[in-house]
């Protein structure tokens, strides 16, 4: 299987462990990734707050580059994924606005490829059964809550991924790895990541609530697929490790994981108590 890959800015900085683990895991699963050349920032929340044309044109340049590869595009960052899907919808369904964006960027959208988060690629295209069969070290005894955040599931008509109120794929994936995903009601509640620097007080309030609810559920760690959630959740508290789902896949598949040391809250003491780390 061949896919193009758009890491986005976070995965080259605050989310290094997400990039390392995604690449390692996909390689093990037989996926060839082609990083799209000379990619740019998608503009994230800042562009859509200030300038709608720019908020569509920046991701459109990325789609223009990906289009040349003629394979589906993997976008691990939930914010990039969301912006790419938003732009794709305009280019596909709204000729007037889409045409304007094409003129701004200087390309013609022909499509023929899908933008996917790695959770979709692994959970749906590769499949959980195949993943389960490749597990070498089951994550037995590891009690986790799956935390989606906002951008992977909302708005549902744009991202067209999972149920926006009660997504289940991440839970089923953790189960396939032998871990114990717990029920809780906060999987898609906002962590305030977009206000992390500007209104740290609000981000702190939201993070504190999420972590206390995860603790109430009995979780030893939270599992996420969004680099903006992950960094916000690690910055604003000390107790609860915040893991990318790809790191846990890597651990279960017996890949020589080199990413734990990148965390602000080191998950290795927890993993050692369960004999999952040296």
């Amino acid at each position, binding site marked *: 299987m061949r896919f193009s890959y758009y890491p986005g800015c976070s995965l080259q900085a605050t989310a290094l462990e997400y990039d390392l683990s995604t690449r390692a895991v996909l390689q093990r699963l037989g996926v060839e990734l082609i990083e799209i050349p000379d990619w740019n920032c998608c503009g994230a929340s800042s562009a859509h*707050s200030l300038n709608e044309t720019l908020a569509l044109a920046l991701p459109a340049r990325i789609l223009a580059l990906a289009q040349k590869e003629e394979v589906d595009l993997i976008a691990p960052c939930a914010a990039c994924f969301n912006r790419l899907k938003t732009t794709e919808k305009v280019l596909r369904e709204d000729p007037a606005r889409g045409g304007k964006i094409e003129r701004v960027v200087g390309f013609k959208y022909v499509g023929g490829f899908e933008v996917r988060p790695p959770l979709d690629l692994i959970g749906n295209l590769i499949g959980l059964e195949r993943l389960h069969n490749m597990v070498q070290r089951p994550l037995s005894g590891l009690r986790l809550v799956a935390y989606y955040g906002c951008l992977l599931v909302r708005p549902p008509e744009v991202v067209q991924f999972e149920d926006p109120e009660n997504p289940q794929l991440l839970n089923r994936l953790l189960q396939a790895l032998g871990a114990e995903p717990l029920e809780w009601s906060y999987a898609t509640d906002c962590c305030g990541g977009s206000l992390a620097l500007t209104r740290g007080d609000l981000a702190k309030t939201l993070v504190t609530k999420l972590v206390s609810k995860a603790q109430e559920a009995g979780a030893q760690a939270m599992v996420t697929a969004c680099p903006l959630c992950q960094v916000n959740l690690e910055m604003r508290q000390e107790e609860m490790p915040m893991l990318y789902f790809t790191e846990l896949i890597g651990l279960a598949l017996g890949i020589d994981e080199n990413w734990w040391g990148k965390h602000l809250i080191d998950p290795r003491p927890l993993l050692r108590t369960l004999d999952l780390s040296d």
Partner: protein
Amino acid sequence: MELRERALKVDSPFLEMVNQRSRQLIQLCYHCHKCTAGCPVAFAMDYGPDRVLRMIQFGWKEQVLNSSDIWICASCETCGTRCPNEIDIARVMDALRQIAVEEGLPTKERNVPLFHNLFLSIVKRLGRMHEASLMGLYFPLSRDLFSDLSIIPKGVKMILKGKIPLLPHRIKGSDEVEKIFERSG
């Protein structure tokens, strides 16, 4: 259907302006409060999303554009996902921010638009984000150096772990990206 038609007749130039820019029909809102009930940051807002929609229906332009609400909105999209009238309220908030900035209105939450402007100025120059530059500009310009001391040790830890690269990387096509900015107005 009669109620819908009557609601659609609400007349205000500000409502028209926001409808057009957000591509929503704000007059459809019948104030069930579902948006505000689910909004994670409504507790910190002046009004909350449902009252913002009502004020737009009334044409209260100044109050809406001066409210903290439009900048505190975290764009989490919970409101629009749950709205029984399918109003994408996060798009309405985007439209309100854009109008507020274009009209140069003062805001209680000046640091939020400041952050977005600095973020985009870096992307315009480099083609990508560079977190160290963003923080180096944001902290002094926001005059918010000391309200949030708790994150400083963590920031240092991230630099040491290579998660905040100190040297910026400019993409080869940065001139293309700059043109995209210029053509986007």
